[in-house]
């Protein structure tokens, strides 16, 4: 019976390949997988939802720019995206050069200058959506707790799951890594965890409200790393600064030439920098791999029925596998970011050794 099912599935796949073969002669243009991947990873002024034949369904997003000459401008991106190189209110989307794909201001002398760009781009919109999801989920959970007393039985269902999730991070990560005044830091660390986690997971959903590459974007991770940097260094104890500026090493390592202090000071910045790069690179790489694997279907579409069918099967299987891995990565990266932040904060709460 099982073998029959497999054979039936294989036949079905082959039948699906026939229309592809039929349309083969019209497939003139080459599929540029690199272009697809980079187009997704980088930001866009519209949110392309789907295409049906020749029709494109996409969400035009507002462009908000500040020009030194003409002040603030706010208009829909649809004005710029009708055709390539179209100009609207003196702005256009650069097709080449340093600012390729970005909104630039065209000066009177033909020079292209990048204005101060606060556009609600695809990434910004998905950031907003994800923020609303995070706030919604957590406040929905918190509402249950506002309504109940310590005597009421433990919550069930979604709230119970969220409680378990939150307390797992609180108990296992924050409490054990930060140490005794973990309560002061736990709101920030929990926010960071759920913010990253929701953004990662939403990024894996391929259809409209999800699919944005938010945490795989350096501007996002730089803010998160900056927050950790501030949380670590603003509330550092005397002992922490002493360990940086005057560590317990042989005196010749710190007296004439401040070798160790220099290394330690450098370490202050490398730690959040590592956090930033790790999260950014992991998520970006995840998105790239899944897209590249999906692109296999289109790249091999023109190579004959057998190759394209078998490669389609391979691509789908690999995509399923990678998506599973990415779900894991989404959690692990949020976990690692939170844990390392907690560890750094814990180090900044160092107390004098009893020696």
């Amino acid at each position, binding site marked *: 019976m099982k073998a029959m099912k497999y054979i039936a599935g294989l036949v079905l796949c082959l039948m699906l390949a026939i229309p592809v073969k039929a349309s083969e002669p019209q497939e003139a243009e080459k599929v540029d997988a690199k272009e697809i991947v980079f187009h997704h990873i980088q930001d866009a002024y519209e949110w392309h939802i789907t295409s049906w034949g020749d029709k494109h369904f996409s969400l035009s997003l507002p462009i*908000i720019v500040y020009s030194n000459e003409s002040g603030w401008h706010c208009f829909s991106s649809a004005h710029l995206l009708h055709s390539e190189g179209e100009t609207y209110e003196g702005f256009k989307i650069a097709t080449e050069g340093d600012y390729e794909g970005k909104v630039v201001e065209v000066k009177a002398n033909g020079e292209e200058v990048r204005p101060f760009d606060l556009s609600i781009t695809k990434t910004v919109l998905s950031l*907003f959506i994800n923020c609303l999801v995070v706030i919604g989920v957590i406040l929905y959970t918190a509402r249950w707790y506002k309504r109940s007393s*310590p005597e009421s039985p433990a919550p069930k269902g979604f709230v119970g799951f969220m409680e378990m999730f*939150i307390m797992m991070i609180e108990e296992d990560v924050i409490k054990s890594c930060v140490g005794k005044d973990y309560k002061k830091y736990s709101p920030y660390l929990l926010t960071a965890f*759920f913010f990253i986690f929701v953004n990662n997971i939403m990024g894996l959903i391929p259809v409209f409200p999800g699919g944005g590459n938010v945490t795989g974007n*350096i501007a996002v991770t730089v*803010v998160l790393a900056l927050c950790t940097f501030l949380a670590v260094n603003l509330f550092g104890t005397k002992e922490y600064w002493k360990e940086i500026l005057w560590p317990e090493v042989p005196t010749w390592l710190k007296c004439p030439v401040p070798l160790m202090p220099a290394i330690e000071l450098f370490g202050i910045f490398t730690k959040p920098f590592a956090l930033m790069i790790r999260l950014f690179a992991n998520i970006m790489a995840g998105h790239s791999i899944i897209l590249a694997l999906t692109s296999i279907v289109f790249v091999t579409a023109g190579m004959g029925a057998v190759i394209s069918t078998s490669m389609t099967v391979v691509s789908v299987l690999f995509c399923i596998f990678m998506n599973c891995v990415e779900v894991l990565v989404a959690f692990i990266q949020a976990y690692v970011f939170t844990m390392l932040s907690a560890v750094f904060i814990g180090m900044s709460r160092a107390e004098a050794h009893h020696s």
Partner: protein
Amino acid sequence: MSLLVPDSGLLFWMLLSFGIVFFVLAKFGFPVITKMVEERKQYIDHSLIVAKEANEQLANIKAEGESILAKANEEQVRILKEAAEARERIVREAKEQARIEGDRMLAEVRRQIQAEKEDAIRDIRRQVAVLSVDIAEKVLRKNLDTDKEQMQMIDRMLDELTHVSKN
């Protein structure tokens, strides 16, 4: 390289939105949840202690109850034994009394029968005496029809009497 250059617009929006998310969640989200969970944990710990105490008390009460029950059982046995003894004693006494009474009544009856018997005997004697006198009279009357015989009789009797008195 543009991948590694943070975009100013995104940076701004990220700062803003993360700031808002952090503010909202740190004020209304996580502390509410963690505080309540903490409180519940304390409540559960407290309840466990209270439950343990209650259990101990219950065990004490149980032991006490058992001892009371045992005592009551003992008491019951004792009372039953006493009751049985009392019953036996009463029955014995009653029997004794009944026997004595019976004896007494028997003796009375016997005495009465004796008395009656004696009465009857006396009566019979009297009757016999009267009858014998009557018979004797009748016999005598027949024998002493004549004067001569009467005289003979009187003489003999007198003789006899004198004879008796002489002896």
